């Protein structure tokens, strides 16, 4: 049985919940069972925030991530909270701006310039979630390029399609 438990953590306003919704949509396109949920505070933006999605070949009981197989952290706080004590098979992706202590020895670990790519290459900080989705789909091989494109287009505002597809492409291009 294949079961992926994905957690995206960062700051409210980065769009990470939408990111997990898009990954869930990609799971649906691949005929998988999915469960997407989130936790956030009462603030509109700025608080700590995480989105979770489980993608599985089998019906999903408990809907929250318990044994992550993939974690992405886009803020220092979320790195400190979610990127320790993980199974060694869990893949950890963090933004290059995260201050990772020298003794951090998680094996499946990758640092990528996600925030900088959104800000500079795509030119819009709000696309950071889509840059992330592009990178994550490349790393995990969740679905085809066509399916992930379709999933993105279902969940971004009208008029931002081109920008977000560029973000998706730039995100994927970060992963060599």
């Amino acid at each position: 049985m294949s079961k992926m438990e994905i957690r995206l953590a960062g700051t409210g306003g980065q769009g990470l919940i939408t990111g997990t919704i898009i990954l869930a949509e990609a799971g649906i396109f691949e005929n998988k069972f999915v469960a997407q949920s989130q936790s956030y505070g009462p603030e509109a933006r700025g608080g700590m925030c995480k989105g979770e999605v489980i993608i599985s070949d089998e019906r999903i009981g408990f809907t929250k991530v318990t044994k992550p197989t993939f974690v992405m952290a886009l803020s220092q706080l979320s790195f400190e909270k979610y990127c320790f004590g993980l199974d060694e098979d869990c893949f950890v992706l963090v933004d290059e701006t995260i201050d990772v202590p020298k003794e951090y020895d998680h094996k499946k670990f990758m640092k990528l310039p996600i925030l900088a790519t959104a800000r500079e290459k795509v030119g819009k900080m709000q696309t950071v979630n889509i840059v992330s989705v592009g990178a994550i789909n490349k790393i995990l091989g969740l679905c085809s390029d066509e399916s992930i494109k379709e999933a993105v287009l279902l969940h971004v505002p009208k008029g931002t399609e081109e920008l977000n597809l560029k973000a998706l492409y730039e995100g994927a291009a970060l992963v060599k």
Partner: protein
Amino acid sequence: MGKVKLMQGNEACVEGALYAGCRFYAGYPITPSTEIAEGCAVRMPQVGGHFIQMEDEIASCAAAIGASAAGVKSMTATSGPGFSLKQENLGYACLTEVPFVLVDVQRAGPSTGLPTSPSQGDVMQAKWGTHGDHPIIAIAPSTVEECFRLCVRAFNLSEKYRTPVIFLMDEIVGHLREGIEIPEDGELPIVNRAIPADPASAGHAYATKEGQTVPVMAPFGMGQRYNITGLIHADDGFPTNSTDIADSQVKRLIRKIDDNLDDILSWEEKDLDDADVCVVCFGGTARSVYSAVETLRNEGVKVGVFRPITVWPFPAEEMRRIAGKVKKIIVAEHNDGQMLLEVQRVTGLYDKIGFVGKVNGTVITPEEIVKAVKEG
């Protein structure tokens, strides 16, 4: 069956309501139910229905009741603090026998509590929140698919028995997104309230024949002359101080539900045939319990699940039957022990019943249930 769609529990509730024929929504948005108001604001005009954001929860509950009195299937949705405010009009709908669906997406309380966190702390409020002896139906979905299908059932029961139905969701299912197959038109039965063939000559609206518990009355404005009041009323709807009428009216309201339990009650039993332990749960908590039971069964522990889907009326006889077969019952719920009270009451057992509860806004994990079952 159609194609699988990714949908949130709150969105599925909206689609279920529309499928059931709901064409009026009045509400005042509140986390974690807001997506129901948002969804209705978009969808109602698309199907010829109406959405109105009222000045508060009291008014929105009143508006939904008013629309339904005029014959339009209606819904309002809220969460804990708003649920408290809607209680007065909920009782009004019980006594005036106006069908409507009141959705409560429970969040952690008391008061404004933890707005974005899960809870199931409104179980007893759903039953007793409005004053006086009254019947209530409350239905709790555990999956996004059930948010759709059981919402349809909530409307059907409401129409059939001319009573408000509480759709008792929680943050876990309300904010969960998963795949759902939307039923085709005609796949699920739709019940519409019985109305007289000729309203103008139908006689008194609240009159019931011998053996009948639900009045057959026309929507307001169709020609049948009657009054609507929250006071005890005679068959024409006008207030009365008659003690005989008060007695027969309140008892008839209660009998509407109590005499029809075979039709109303629903529950799920899972892995109970050979079970030594039965975990009782409802709503979003069931998701933690299913995972725990799978783990325990793989380890050879004989454990099963009893899940009341109608939380109210509570499936008491079924609970008693199961209690007589198992060695231990564990009630798991996101509160400090509300369904627990009902399980204790209907079984009369106390020593045999364990409890897993949470009031801190986090979700009960499967591990916590596994531990409780193992520790007996």
